[in-house]
């Protein structure tokens, strides 16, 4: 099979799985998950083959795998769609394939496959546990299988299809298709337990918030398409087109056309990658099952936002002279850097194990966006990939922890204990060793633990780039954010795994089955080793031992291969300092904390996420509801427009009545109709007295009339 054909086929198995499960196998749990995991495996296999073949191509950036077909007739021409694998998409495909496959496998265990059906479980709610009797007749409560087990696999199949489509697309349109399909799936999956009002609301919030970005993105696509006549990346990113777009003013804010298009497209990313100010949906999205959180927040959706900016990088930098950031780039850099530090401050004060990770995701995505804003292309891609691995690991790890805690909750039967609250945990390292060690690796990678972990190398590269190109504000902001990252990560690890169990439930936590731990082990392998493929050439001691494959490979995507940075001790020392310092303080502060009251960082403004939800509710949601329900429906449509229409009725009625009363009744009926009759009647009535029947009178009358007429004739006519 040619590589191009294979690329076309990569997204299809999960889509097929979706339809198969929905239409045929949904009653059979084993068949459904086999279909889904099998499909994920096929896509993984295809991706790996493509990746390996891509490695073997020299100058893949200039000669990518590409193939396209006519899709949409547009007047005299066609809009083409197709697939493209260049170095960047090959690298992204690699991590997507691995994380997706691991998440699929993990879901089998997470949804308690093989466990009995729950006593009171019903579709739309998380399973509550089932009572079983052992051989001695003792009753135990054990985890019960998810009632909508098959449906879950159908949805994540569709989700994977969306992500694969996005990655292999050679044009913005199918990228947007994949993008929106993921939006739908995130809606369906965040609201998977739709009977919980919180999940239902979170799903709508996620969909609507990202849709704000999407409509701007659609405008950007329309603008780009009309300006260039094409939507394929290779068609847009020709030197000539970019030069024109970079030179033509767009007419707003002094932006070039390229700048305005980039910003419009970037607003899509702000929504999808949960950047400030559209970050509000992501933490609430934790309402979904944990594999979904990993899917959305690591492997697929939020990465898609960053990936879109990565794809559009040549456009973003079309009028970039290499030194002074363009307006569009400054916007991107500002949003990224601000989000990085802003979200990190919130993460510090969260107690829900998944919410910490949620804010951490927002913050780390900010790092990538900021890197793209300052032109650090390779560093951004690098961090995207390492982050995907360790964040997927952390989410799945947290799911494993929650699962273990739920085991404890079912054991004690005390359902008031929140199995996600870190203050209910502690000491889990002994109960859940695999989860602990893998979580530790993931956490250290997130914190940027030096040399060993992948997160160190990618984060260091971003800092080095910011420093090397003199973007001090970005550098300092990201350095502080990195410190906070290490701090809250260690806080999380300490509260969850170290010390002694703080509740009875934590004492009875239990390691999870192999379907859940195996993915953790695989992902922790990448969370360590993936960093080693991108060690800068000039790094002390280690540099040059292994070639900086990542820089060479991914850098080849761009028309101009980015130069390797000169080594500087300042960013290196900074990233060492903030990572180790953050980890140390995190441990120091929280090692003896036993209850939430002792936590000094439970600051209301941080806990309440700087009150953005409340502000948005007041500023946007309430007015929009009022505008719809009162202004448009009541005042405008029912009041004004129908009011005007309803005037026609009475007015017509009045005109009709007027005509009837004053014309028909009065003039025609009374005056003309009845009037002529009345006159005749009156005349007859009054003439009656002369009808006496006496011949003499008649003769006198005849004579008088004869005289009168004769006189008149004589005087008037003859005289």
């Amino acid at each position, binding site marked *: 099979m040619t590589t191009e054909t294979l690329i076309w086929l990569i997204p299809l198995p999960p889509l097929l799985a979706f339809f198969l499960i*929905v239409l045929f196998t949904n009653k059979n749990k084993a068949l459904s998950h086999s279909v889904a995991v099998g499909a994920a495996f096929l896509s993984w296999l295809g991706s790996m083959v493509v990746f390996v073949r891509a490695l073997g191509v020299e100058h893949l950036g200039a000669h990518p795998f590409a193939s396209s077909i*006519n*899709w*949409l*007739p*547009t*007047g*005299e*021409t066609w809009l083409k769609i197709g697939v493209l694998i260049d170095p960047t998409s090959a690298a992204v495909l690699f991590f997507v394939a691995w994380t997706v496959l691991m998440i699929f496998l993990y879901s089998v265990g997470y949804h308690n496959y093989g466990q009995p059906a729950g006593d009171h479980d*019903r*579709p*739309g709610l998380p399973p509550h546990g089932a009572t079983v009797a052992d051989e001695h007749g003792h009753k135990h409560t054990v985890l019960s299988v998810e009632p909508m087990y098959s449906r879950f696999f159908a949805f994540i199949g569709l989700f994977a299809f969306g992500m694969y489509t996005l990655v292999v697309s050679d044009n913005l*349109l199918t990228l*947007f*298709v994949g*993008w*929106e*399909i993921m939006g*739908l799936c995130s*809606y*369906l999956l965040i*609201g998977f337990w*739709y*009977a*919980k*009002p919180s999940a*239902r609301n979170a799903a*709508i919030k996620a*969909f*609507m918030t990202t*849709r*704000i970005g999407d*409509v*701007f993105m*659609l*405008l950007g*696509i*329309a*603008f780009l*398409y*009309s300006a260039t*006549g094409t939507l394929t990346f290779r068609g847009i990113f020709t030197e000539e087109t970019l030069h024109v777009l970079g030179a033509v003013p767009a007419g707003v804010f002094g932006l070039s056309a390229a700048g305005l298009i980039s910003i419009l497209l970037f607003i899509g990313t702000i929504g999808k990658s949960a950047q400030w100010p559209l970050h509000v949906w992501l933490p609430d999205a934790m309402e979904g099952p944990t594999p979904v959180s990993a899917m959305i927040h690591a492997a697929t959706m939020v990465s898609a936002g960053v990936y879109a900016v990565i794809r559009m990088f040549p456009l973003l930098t079309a009028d970039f002279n290499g030194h002074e950031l363009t307006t569009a780039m400054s916007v991107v850099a500002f949003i990224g850097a601000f989000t990085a530090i802003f979200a990190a401050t919130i993460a510090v004060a969260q107690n829900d194990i998944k919410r910490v990770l949620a804010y951490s995701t927002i913050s780390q995505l900010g790092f990538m966006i900021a890197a793209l804003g300052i032109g650090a292309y390779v560093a951004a891609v690098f961090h995207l990939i390492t982050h995907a691995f360790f964040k997927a690991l952390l989410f799945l790890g947290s799911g494993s922890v929650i699962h273990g805690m739920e085991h404890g909750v079912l054991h004690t039967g005390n359902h008031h204990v929140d199995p996600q609250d870190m203050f209910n945990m502690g000491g889990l390292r002994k109960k859940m060793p695999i989860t602990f060690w893998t979580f530790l690796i993931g956490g250290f990678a997130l914190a940027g633990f030096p040399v060993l972990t992948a997160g160190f190398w990618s984060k260091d590269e971003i800092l080095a780039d910011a420093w090397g190109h003199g973007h001090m504000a970005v550098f300092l902001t990201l350095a502080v954010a990195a410190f906070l990252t290490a701090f809250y990560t260690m806080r999380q690890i300490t509260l969850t795994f170290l010390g002694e169990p703080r509740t009875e439930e934590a004492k009875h936590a239990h390691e999870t089955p192999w379907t859940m731990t195996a993915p953790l082990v695989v992902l922790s392998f990448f969370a360590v080793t993936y960093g080693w493929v991108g060690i800068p050439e000039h790094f002390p001691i280690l540099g040059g031992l292994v070639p900086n494959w990542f820089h060479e490979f991914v850098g080849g995507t761009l028309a101009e291969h980015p130069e390797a940075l000169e080594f500087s001790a300042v960013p290196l020392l900074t990233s060492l300092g903030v990572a180790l310092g953050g980890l140390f303080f995190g441990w120091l502060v929280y090692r003896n904390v036993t209850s939430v009251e002792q936590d000094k960082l439970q600051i209301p403004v941080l806990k309440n996420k700087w009150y953005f939800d409340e502000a948005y509710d007041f500023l946007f949601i309430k007015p*929009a*509801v009022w*505008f*719809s*329900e*009162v*202004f*448009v*429906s*009541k005042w*405008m*449509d*029912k009041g004004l*427009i*129908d009011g005007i*229409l309803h005037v026609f009725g009475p007015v017509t009625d009045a005109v009709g009545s007027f005509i009837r009363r004053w014309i028909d009744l009065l003039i025609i009926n009374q005056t003309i109709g009845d009037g002529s009759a009345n006159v005749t009647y009156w005349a007859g009535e009054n003439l009656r007295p002369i009808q006496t029947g006496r011949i003499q009178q008649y003769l006198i009358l005849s004579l008088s009339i004869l005289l009168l007429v004769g006189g008149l004739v004589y005087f008037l006519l003859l005289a």
Partner: protein
Amino acid sequence: MDYLNTHLLSLILFLPTVAALIMLFLPSGETKLLRWFAFSASLIPFVLTLVLWAGFDPNAAGFQFEEVYPWYEALHSSLHLGVDGISLSMVLLTTLLTPLAILASFSVTDRVKPYMMLFLFLETGMLGVFMALDLLIFFVFWEIGLVPMYFLINQWGSANRNYASLKFMIYTMGGSLGLLLAVQMLGVLFGTYDLLELYQRWNALDSGTLLGMSVSTVKAIAFWAFAIAFAVKVPVWPFHTWLPDAHTEAPTAGSMILAGVLLKLGAYGFIRLVLPFYPNEAKYFAGALAFLAAAAIVFGAFGSFGQTDFKRLVAYSSVNHMGFVVLGIAAAGLAAGTADAHIAMNGAVLQMFNHGLSAAGMFFLVGVIYERAHTRNLDDFGGLFPLVPVYGGILIFMSMASLGLPGLNGFVSEFMIVRGAYPVLTVYTAISMLGLLFTGAYILKGIMKVLHGPMNEHWAHGEHKLTEINAREILVALPLMALILVIGVWPAWILEVINKAVVALF
């Protein structure tokens, strides 16, 4: 076979009427027979439309399958039929939706015979508009379509049906008054009503005086006479308030046809008559038209979001979606002759077809739940998903099509309209994005209020127990869903037919 090919259009057009007349002689009590007869009869035009589609050559210029019969010779009006790519797609939509609407009406038990007959008459009325190549014939069919719909709403509608049917009838007829005058003026001026002839002679007339006014003034007045008649039908804001009432009160199948086809008559009028007759005026007034379109998109979306009645919510969504059609038409009028115009017009025609599918589907699904629950109040629902999972899945699918989810049909057409309109009507396009955003809001509100939430005990047990969607109803939804998906994934098969006609005309 030869006879079939030369009389294909008239067969498709009049077979429903013939079937309706035959129904007169069927026994009124045999409801089963009546239903199946009407359903089978309405399938014949559909099959013939497939034959028509197969025999249609998209690459040939002009109208195909033309037929001319003498009709009103004193006025030089003849029954002139013909289709091009634009009307062909509308004919397909009509002949597809009619059998589905009849199938959806199998649950009607009240006076089945006249009900089914009215549907068949209605089909002829709608098809006539799409096939007519004679202005007077166009107008006649335009008005004929109103009558069966009036009775369907008035006789089989729900509580407020008198008000709604009267408003529908009066409003549309009022709008048509100007159209009638303008049509007569054209007929008197040129001594013919034949569209093809009028296109040339009317457009050749560009200076001098007519009826004591300059030609440009007459044309501007006639333009608005046409435009308002069609704007009421589309409906464009602020002429839209008849729609929520008519849709809400009409029986389910009536709403399906009303949203699915009748609204398209207005947009079709713009495309077939307004733009070809008044290219200069269309260009000159494009901004005004786009303003109304953007208002329809935005206020339609907000209006929909503000409803508490499920059916009204869906009804307002039609205002929102048809606004995009008008936006595309405005852009095509403004940019006539350019690629932007072609893309916008392609999008507009496809959007008509797409909205026909998704709106009919949505109204049908509302009807399914209304038949069972006897309420449409959104606050009475919620938490129905566990009770009716299959219905829920279909509803989500249909809602997503309505929302314009990429991968389904609505996205393709909305994207093309936005793409075509953006370069020429940038501000209005940007404003209409607000409507697109709120499309999401009202769709999700609908799903949330009906399906999501804690399981609804009221509908779970006893006399109120909600039953799952049945096989017949799935059969109604299935063709719609299949087409929605197919067009979303592979729109070229239908767009190629539309595109050639669009390029030839605009």
